């Protein structure tokens, strides 16, 4: 097979995975939140309401797609794509198992962060193009949020990188193979990553840019039909990528303790990886069903005054431990 064909197949697989993932996640959100709310969630369509989301996708696809009168038409049309494409591309470097990686990049972690930060650009474009003050406020918030949290998020991801000695996501997982998962030595970093990631993925209690009780629907207010669908889907996709990163960095990726690596190198590893990721997502949904939303100024001060210094301090500690630890333990360096 030609390399082009392989690349195309990989992209298609990623698109398919993302769409399917979105449908599954929305169903899961409805069920999990439903039960947290002491109600049932969808029950009618298919077994346990499983096909409800599919029906909703069909609905979104067939809905009228009106464009409000005074929007910036080019930007308004492009914005959902600018949001959607990076969240799609972010799947590329995720190591589902040691053999299932779309693009095994040496700087996979950096790539994922870089590509995800483009999403904010699209969100700002959407808010700016919509000619709606609520959208604009949502967009402004998402920029403020981005500037505040990009740095702590990356810094919180660094301790595992320092221990593993690589930015390649698969290598980070391999470094956890046979030893403890990085959540144990890097527990504070895990907490910082969780908070910063919730903000990055725009999840409750930090869903600032579309805070519906304040900003109607924030940057997505003026969007309908599949344009809205794309914005919506990419949000779920970002949540998935963030959870997958968390699994990769802190929960041993595709590995399981006491299970031989040979069993987990192919599809088996991918299944483990997906299950772990979905468990993380379930926790995020639990958070969503429990907590109110913080205020934007509280969020920003948390970022600058707490998370940034704390992550920096933890990096110094990790650095010292990595350099001096073996010397202290083994007596030789």
């Amino acid at each position, binding site marked *: 097979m030609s390399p082009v064909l392989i690349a195309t197949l990989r992209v298609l697989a990623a698109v398919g995975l993302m769409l399917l993932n979105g449908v599954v996640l929305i169903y899961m959100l409805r069920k999990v*939140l439903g039960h*947290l*709310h*002491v*109600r049932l969630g969808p029950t009618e369509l298919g077994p346990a309401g499983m096909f409800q989301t599919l029906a909703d996708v069909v609905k979104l696809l067939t809905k009228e797609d009106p464009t409000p009168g005074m929007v910036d038409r080019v930007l308004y049309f492009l914005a959902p794509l600018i949001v959607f494409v990076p969240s799609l591309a972010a799947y590329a470097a995720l190591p589902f198992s040691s053999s299932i990686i779309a693009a095994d990049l040496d700087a996979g972690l950096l790539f994922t962060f870089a590509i995800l930060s483009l999403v904010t650009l699209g969100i700002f474009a959407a808010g700016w193009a919509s000619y709606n*003050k*609520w959208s*604009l*406020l949502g967009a*402004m*918030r998402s920029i403020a949020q981005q500037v505040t949290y990009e740095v702590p998020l990356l810094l919180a991801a660094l301790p595992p990188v320092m221990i593993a000695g690589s930015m390649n996501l698969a290598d980070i997982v391999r470094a956890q193979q046979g030893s403890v998962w990085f959540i144990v030595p890097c527990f504070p970093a895990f907490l910082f990553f969780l908070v910063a990631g919730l903000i990055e993925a725009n999840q*409750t*209690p930090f*869903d600032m840019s579309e*805070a*519906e*009780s*304040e*900003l*109607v629907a924030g940057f997505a207010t003026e969007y309908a039909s599949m344009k809205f669908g794309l914005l919506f889907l990419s949000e779920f996709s970002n949540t998935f990528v963030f959870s997958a990163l968390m699994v990769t960095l802190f929960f041993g990726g595709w590995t399981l303790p006491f299970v031989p690596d040979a069993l987990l190198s192919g599809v088996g590893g991918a299944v483990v990886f997906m299950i772990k990721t979905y468990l993380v997502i379930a926790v995020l949904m639990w958070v969503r*069903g*429990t*907590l*109110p*939303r*913080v*205020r*934007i*100024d*509280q969020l920003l001060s948390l970022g600058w005054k707490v998370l940034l210094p704390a992550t920096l301090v933890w990096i110094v500690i990790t650095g010292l431990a990595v350099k001096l630890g073996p010397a202290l333990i083994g007596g030789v360096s």
Partner: protein
Amino acid sequence: MTVAYHTDVSPEAILAGMPSAERPCKIGPGRIPCAHTTPGELLDMLRQLRDEHGFTHLELLTAEEMQTASDDDGVGAEPGVRMVYGLTRRSDRRTMVIYVALPDGALEVPSISSLWRGAAPLEREVFDLFGVHFNGHPALTRIVLRDDFVGHPLRKSFEMPEGGVSAETVRAAAASHGDAHLRADGTADPASIPGLDPALLPCPEPGFETERIVVHMGPQHPSTHGVLHLWLVLDGETVVAAQPTQGYLHRCIEKLAESRDYRACTALLDRCDYVSGFHTELAHVLAVEELCGIESTPKADFLRVLFSELVRITSHHTWFAAAGLDTGALTPFLYAFIDRELILDFFEEVTGGRMMFNYFRPGGVKDDLPPGAAARMVEYLRTFDRAVDEYEALLTGNEIFRARTRGVAFLDRVTIADYCVTGPMARASGVDIDLRRDQPYAAYDRLPVRVALGEAGDTFERYLVRIAEMRESARLALAALEGLPEGPHVSDGVPRTIKPPKGAAYRAVESPRGELGVYLVSDGSAQPWRLKVRSPAMSNIHAAGPLCAGLRLADVAPVVGSIDIVMGEIDR
């Protein structure tokens, strides 16, 4: 304003000693002292009553059409409008009413918004519905009807054009009026917001051109609790000024009441405050009973307390649900609504309705409790505290919820008096008022009423006070059930068609939002001459302006939620 009030001086004596108070009289069967004055002397007289005699609470501001036939309670013979000002002294809960007669052709009276800022929206309502002009009013525009409406519908001379208002009339009026809030490019012109200080608008940032944003929050907004509309002037995320507007849910209830008999009005008033219909019903029924001299039975009194308290719980359920939603938490909403459902089932069982009860009648209540209902209510109420514990577990101790509400939007006593704020809003700031204890009605004088009182006056305190009230209400409802006397649930001899003698009555009850009063004027016929609902939420919501100024945009929804408004009651 620390003047020693001579609270031992009765309102009658005060009025008798005032040269500007003419024709002292009483409204209702000798309950409320009243006097007449002239427009020229009104302002001085009210200021004197407020500052020297302690009548600090403007309980009622409305108007009624003059009854042309002169009679003993001093009603003038000239056609025109009579302004009604009801004042209350907190220290001993005595009330007095000042009338100002305005003959047609001279419908002008000085605005008292310089004494009570909360009077401004009430005066706008009178202007809207009666056409009375208030001199010196900051922004005298229509408040419940559309700006291009022609005429003043509560005047008896008002007639709808044949077949309603024609499209031509509306178009012509709109063309002459224009849309005052819009600039030529279709954007909102902040300078035209009624009652907003234009000095707030330019952004003082020399050398750097910025603009303040004016946004409409509502009437179509997820967290405006119905159809409230707030103009917000924003400087980035900071709210520079907030101005509530209302009228999107005006259903002419007061006008409709004038063409229905007294019993049928009860059904209308259910639709007024649709979250706690029993309270509006009760205020009306008490006023009718007072006008006619009907007594209700002891059993009915207890049933009235029972349902007033149960509906207060469901109303606070709705508020609690919104308190979660406004801060972005969805789960409290569903928790509260599950329990609300159980109480609504009781309502349905007894009254047949879940929201629109039409249950209280002059002389008693419509039906007795069905067999077994009392036992089931007792069983439910005994476990009620556990449900509230669950709500509290969700929000009270939550760090984020506390950070969002503690120290946010302090309401001080001056603002409370200025805007005539009542109910849990006032109690959360330490103003110890509760009609159930201070002016007992129904069976409250026979039950131990404990008033939930706060101190801090911020959003969190308002939350705590309402939570405490839920527990208290359950306790009171339980006490009412346990003390339920035997006997008939409605008194005999209430005529089928109620025709009260000429006169007026004002009765207020403690609704979940504050003091809800019904001012009822009878001309001796089977229909009320005037029925005015004193809406506590209307007075409370206009305090949102000072409450929200300086906050963040994200705070507006929780703060407005902590006012606990029901637009149906505000717009009527």
